[in-house]
């Protein structure tokens, strides 16, 4: 796997994680 492919693979995982975390933050979650 090339570095570029690895970055794309990471993006497909990490960007949804960020969005889902934001959508489910109710202000009470300890970070």
């Amino acid at each position, binding site marked *: 796997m090339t570095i570029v492919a690895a970055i794309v693979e990471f993006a497909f995982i990490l960007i949804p994680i960020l969005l*889902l975390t934001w959508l*489910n933050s*109710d202000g009470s979650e300890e970070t």
Partner: protein
Amino acid sequence: MYAAHFGAGLAIKSRMWNAPTWALLVAAFLPDILWIPLATLGIESQPTAWHDDWSHSLLMVLVWATLLALLFVRRGRAVAAAIWLAVFSHFLLDLPIHPKDLALYPHSTIHLGMGLWGIGRFNYWLVESCVLVVLMIFYIRGARSHRLSVNSIAGTCVLLLALHTRFFLPF
């Protein structure tokens, strides 16, 4: 599977609201997150054969789950157990359909799985759709009981379905 791993993290979140969402989602994807650098370094995926024993085999998933859960013990045993379960959920969800059946341990000749990889792209989509819907129902029920806003729940479900659909598009 792809979107179902996010669904698993959120389903566990709905039962353990004290656990950080980001941690559960990272945990649910941990074998894949580990696979990427291992494949880049040439340790996992090989040019001639699929290889993910160090990130996805049963033994290693148990190891990764335990190590990550230990990092969260100070937040309470229940949170650590939720993190552990999120990592292990990755193995359970990959068990029916994976490019190669999952090894018992690295370089083991014993492999676990249902060998459904050859059922075709659309059938794969249908199987993951069923799994995702079940996980989303768990999530919705838990999120509602914790009074998460309808907009947040709806946004989460739309995003999950979009990720699931996008993953199977040929472009």
